[in-house]
């Protein structure tokens, strides 16, 4: 079989074997509805309680502050739309950043239709939000600041502790989308003064379709998915027992092994960065050199277009993405790179390499070798590259 190297762990991860094992008994066997009084229901409820307690402990909050959702997107929608709808009598202003995930940006855009005023904070050329602008943007009517912990495209880490501090001083709620950060960034919501946080299991070797929103007790938030008494009446829908159990096991492992994993991931990341920069001319690192996720390297290769490069790498068994999986089906170029003022002609080739637990050093050799060849081939085909070399265009 052809060699397969998966370098798209920012898009989604493979479910860990221990996680699958942990879920299996809850598909059949202990499959009850935790709301049911009987044995099957009680056993299921016990498993959910145990998972909730443990996840809360890992985040530094109370179990009653954890609300399970169908993933990061739902958690983001709930955080933003819920706060707006529950508090619009007090104001209609929300502050977020230009580099948020689509789940946050699209929720904000949707609220604009309902009369919300949204400030989209700028970022510097490394993709890090501007704290001074944040301070200036907060007004009387500001309900919420939502800034992600780590960006999914360029991996830039945001100064969330400082943001939380500013929000606490100005008595504005602070939500952070930590979907990319759980298992890579050390987070404790109490210590870090975070009011709301979104997470999603499939980014840390858990299953797709399960996540959580942490909402600090005492915050007035609307329900988002109306229904039965689940999640203390705040989120209807039959409790997803197997996936919650799976998420807990995945998070447990991810947080337990965080330091050692980060060491390995950042070693590989830095090796890839160094080799690309020394071996491929006109390759530019997108994002910040230090303040970035341990597993993320994002490069632009001048004179070529990203999709072709990605498909060529794919033919060689190397799975990478352009910006983000959410937009890769679309023609738009990355809103993150344009917020960073990356020149249009090099945003086209932005390629994200996101390492995972199966990545290793030998992969890097193979990647570099193929990357070099592909870049050469595509540049040979590129009219822009010819131009740059000074070849005249005979028009």
């Amino acid at each position, binding site marked *: 079989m052809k060699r397969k190297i998966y370098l798209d762990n920012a898009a989604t991860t493979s479910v860990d074997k221990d996680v699958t094992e942990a879920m299996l008994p809850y598909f059949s066997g202990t499959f009850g509805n935790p709301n049911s009084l009987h044995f099957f229901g009680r056993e299921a409820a016990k498993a959910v309680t145990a998972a909730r307690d443990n996840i809360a402990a890992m985040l530094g909050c109370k179990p009653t502050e954890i609300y399970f959702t169908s993933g990061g997107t739902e958690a983001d929608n709930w955080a933003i739309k819920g706060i707006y709808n529950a508090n619009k009598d007090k104001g209609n202003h929300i502050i977020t950043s230009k580099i948020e995930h689509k789940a946050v940006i699209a929720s904000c855009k949707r609220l604009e239709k309902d009369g919300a005023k949204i400030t989209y904070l700028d970022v510097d050329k490394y993709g890090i939000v501007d704290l001074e602008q944040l301070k200036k943007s907060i007004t009387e009517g500001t309900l919420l600041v939502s800034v992600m912990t780590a960006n999914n495209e360029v991996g830039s880490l945001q100064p969330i502790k400082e943001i939380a501090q500013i929000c606490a001083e100005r008595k504005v709620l602070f939500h952070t989308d930590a979907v990319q950060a759980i298992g890579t960034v050390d987070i404790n919501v109490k210590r870090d003064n975070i009011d709301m946080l979104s997470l999603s299991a499939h980014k840390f070797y858990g299953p797709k379709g399960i996540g959580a929103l942490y909402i600090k007790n005492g915050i007035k938030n609307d329900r988002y998915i109306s229904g039965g008494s689940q999640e203390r009446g705040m989120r209807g829908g039959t409790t997803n027992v197997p996936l919650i159990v799976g998420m807990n096991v995945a998070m447990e492992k991810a947080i337990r092994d965080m330091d050692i994993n980060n060491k390995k991931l950042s070693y590989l990341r830095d090796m890839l960065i160094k080799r690309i920069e020394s071996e491929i001319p006109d390759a530019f690192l997108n994002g910040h050199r230090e303040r970035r996720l341990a597993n993320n390297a994002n490069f632009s290769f001048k004179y*070529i277009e990203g*999709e*072709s490069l990605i*498909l060529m790498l794919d033919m060689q068994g190397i799975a990478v993405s352009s910006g983000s999986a959410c937009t890769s089906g679309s023609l738009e170029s990355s809103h993150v790179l344009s917020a960073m003022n990356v020149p249009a002609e090099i945003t086209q080739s932005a390629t994200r390499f996101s390492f995972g637990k199966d990545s290793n050093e030998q992969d890097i050799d193979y990647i570099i070798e193929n990357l070099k060849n592909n870049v050469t081939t595509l540049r040979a085909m590129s009219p822009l590259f010819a131009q740059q070399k000074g070849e005249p265009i*005979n028009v």
Partner: protein
Amino acid sequence: MYNDKVMENFKNPQNVGEIENPDGVGRVGNASCGDIMEIYLKIDDDIITDAKFKTFGCAAAIASSSMATQLIKGKSIDEAIKITNKQVIEELEGLPPKKIHCSVLAEEAIKLAIENYKSKKASNI
């Protein structure tokens, strides 16, 4: 996303490159919208004897360039100028809806190259 025929033309694109002293050149697109295509023609007696391309763009753009240059080789300029993006798509056995514009670029580049040839010829008379 792409069918086998498109992938085949992407993996092994035909007619990549430039022609020295071409008889006609067409250039379309720009980098910020994602695709640039250049087509070079060698024309003898109004028959296209050689065609080459250079493309900055996605797999569909490269495959369209490859297919378009194959289609026009050996054709008269009157036949070649009538080639439409539909034909390019048909020969490629389909393109995803979002990638139709790539075949349009190929059609346009051919037309421009032939016009470029015609206008050069006119000025040589």
